[in-house]
């Protein structure tokens, strides 16, 4: 069996490879090429070397967006994972209606980002109106708005992954620890967490890359207001590409930098957390 799989590997992989090439590799390479050119539409590009990259990095808006994104990512990764883990712990106890709760917590993840953004904009503005301000009065409102929105959307999803991980922890190990007199917090620290490390790897990866790449929610909730102070990297790239005539190449250069950043951060994180995973 193994032998014939090896033999026909090319046959089975070919359709996927072709599709992958058309939908990913070619546009990706084209995108990198375009980042070194000046163009209005992709058909008439003029090579200009590293000019776009220099422009991108001397662009204050890009640096602001980078700073804002990093700040947002750190905080949202922390809060989402902590809350999701706590919820998962609660919902793996033998409580009544855990399945109903799990479903409810998971549901926000099914709503599209643009819709979520507009709904939360209404909610936030409804509350802030009472104090005579709006979401766009100050960048801090937008920042915390995004954090709350992101938490609301992703906690349920991450919770499901943690629930699966926690349920996989062998009962006998926990029981043995308990008989040996380990306290609850000790069991959590020395038994449960090491054993759910694979789930933590996945959840960290998902929240990290999702927060870094956030676009729809950002666009719908604040659109960068006030004065682009709350625009994140993806939104800044979009605005550069479509909003500024003659800056298409710069937008493309920003996008390449953005890709490299997301890939790098995600890889480093994967390597670090993978190392902490243990076999059970």
């Amino acid at each position, binding site marked *: 069996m193994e032998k014939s799989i090896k033999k*026909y590997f090319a*046959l089975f992989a*070919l*359709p996927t490879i*072709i599709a992958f090439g058309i939908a990913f590799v070619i546009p990706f390479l084209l995108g990198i090429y375009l980042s070194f050119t000046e163009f*209005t*539409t*992709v*058909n*008439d590009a003029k090579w200009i070397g590293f000019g776009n990259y220099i422009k991108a990095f001397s662009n204050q808006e890009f640096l602001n967006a980078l700073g804002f994104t990093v700040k947002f990512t750190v905080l949202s990764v922390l809060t989402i994972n902590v809350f999701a883990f706590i919820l998962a712990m609660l919902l793996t106890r033998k409580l009544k209606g855990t399945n109903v709760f799990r479903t409810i917590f998971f549901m926000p993840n099914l709503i599209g980002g643009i819709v979520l953004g507009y709904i939360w*904009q209404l909610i936030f*503005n409804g509350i802030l*109106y009472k104090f*005579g*301000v*709006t*979401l*766009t*009065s*100050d960048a801090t409102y937008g920042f915390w708005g995004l954090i709350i929105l992101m938490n609301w959307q992703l906690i349920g999803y991450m919770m499901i992954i943690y629930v699966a991980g926690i349920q996989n922890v062998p009962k006998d190990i926990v029981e043995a620890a308990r008989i040996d007199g380990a306290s609850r917090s000790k069991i959590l620290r020395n038994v449960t967490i090491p054993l759910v490390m694979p789930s933590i790897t996945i959840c960290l990866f998902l929240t990290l890359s999702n927060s870094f790449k956030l676009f729809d929610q950002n666009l719908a909730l*604040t*659109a*960068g*207001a*006030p*004065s*682009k102070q709350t625009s994140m990297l993806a939104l800044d790239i979009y605005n550069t590409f*479509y*909003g*500024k*005539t*003659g800056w298409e190449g710069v937008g493309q250069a920003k996008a390449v930098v953005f890709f490299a950043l997301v890939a790098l951060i995600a890889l480093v994180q994967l390597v670090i957390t993978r190392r902490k995973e243990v076999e059970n």
Partner: protein
Amino acid sequence: MKNIKKYLGLMLVMSMVVVLAAGCGNKENNSATNDGNASSGKKGSVYFLNFKPEIAEIYEKIAKDYEAETGVKVKVVTAAAGTYETKLKSEISKSEAPTIFQINGPVGFQAWKDYTLDLKDTKLYSYLSDKSLAVTEGEGVYGIPYVVEGYGIIYNDAIMKKYFALADKAVSISSTTEINNFDTLKAVVEDMTAKKDQLGIKGVFASTSLAAGEQWRWQTHLANLPLYYEFKDNTEFDNTVLAGLASKEVEFKYNDKFKNIFDLYTKNSVTKESLLGSKSVADSMAEFALGNAAMVQNGNWAWSQINDVDGNVVKAEEIKFLPIYTGMEGEEKQGLAVGTENYLAINSKASAENQQASIAFLEWLFSSEKGKAYVTNDLGFIAPFNTFEESEKPADPLAKEVSAWMEKDLTSVAWTFAAFPSEEFKNVFGDALLQYAQGNKTWDEVVTIFKDTWKAEKAK
């Protein structure tokens, strides 16, 4: 057996490749036959990328009608509000690119230069009643305006009459038509705010919409006034747009005039200044239509937005225009701001047949009886073509008002914002206005941002 498997596998791969190739090839074949048809003397086709979502349905009706009459296929695609440039950018790089698209004046022309066909020899250009309205470069004509529009302060005459009938009004004039400068306007507005409960309104002006993408009435239309006067002072040029295009820097020397009217709008409004960041143009048009506000700054295109609001209480004959007075010297002679930013262009990279078909379609639309009826009655355009008779002007109250104001012995304010350096400039200024309204920035900072952004965007 082994061989059979091998061949089976090979056949599978082959068939897959064939299917894929066929999938890709099909399109080429089609377009090849299309081109073949066209070059063998058949009609081309038209692809019109429409700019105005509010009239998309009418264009589709026109397209169907034209196709029935001439057999030429007209495809109309409409970009959602505020996404025209985005849409155009992606559509025009496709193999079936728009043949008719729109540029927004000289600045937009610079971006699309490589794609615009010279229209100097077309009948369409010869129809223009004022040839200077077209976008030109050197000898060539690259953009044809198709609609003249005007904007100013729209007011509800019923509320104004009610105010002037009050026994304790603080001003000496007795009708809105007597307002002809900023001081009078201010006196009236402030007195009306003081008596707003008696008048049954929530504020004199509808909300000053400053949400992202909704600030064009201020960062473009209102900013037009101080810059129009600034460029008018530059006597080297015979036209404020040309003077603006040549200005690498601006002084923004009438910024205090801008501040005058902007403050008047925000301080006498339905909505508190700090909440303006969440208001849209549609909100303010609804406030006007529902009678919550007496005045709103907008153009004649806003008629449908007023008319279509559920529970609309404003009668058509009560809707009137007032020029935007800012406190400029001699503004008694100032009229509405009249101009256009809608220019039709033909894609120079489309096939010759399609170009001809597109020009023919536009000529039909603006000169045939049927086409003109659509333009006047359904699209509601005040078309700048000599093919239109006096009786073929639109009948909605705001368009009528624009025509009436143009006939008065006043100087219309030209749409100088065609010379604004970029969308980016407008948006940065709009954001600064929001921060000023919310109290996070001083007026001096806004002025500095205005000047710096202009300089930076022009330098590119």
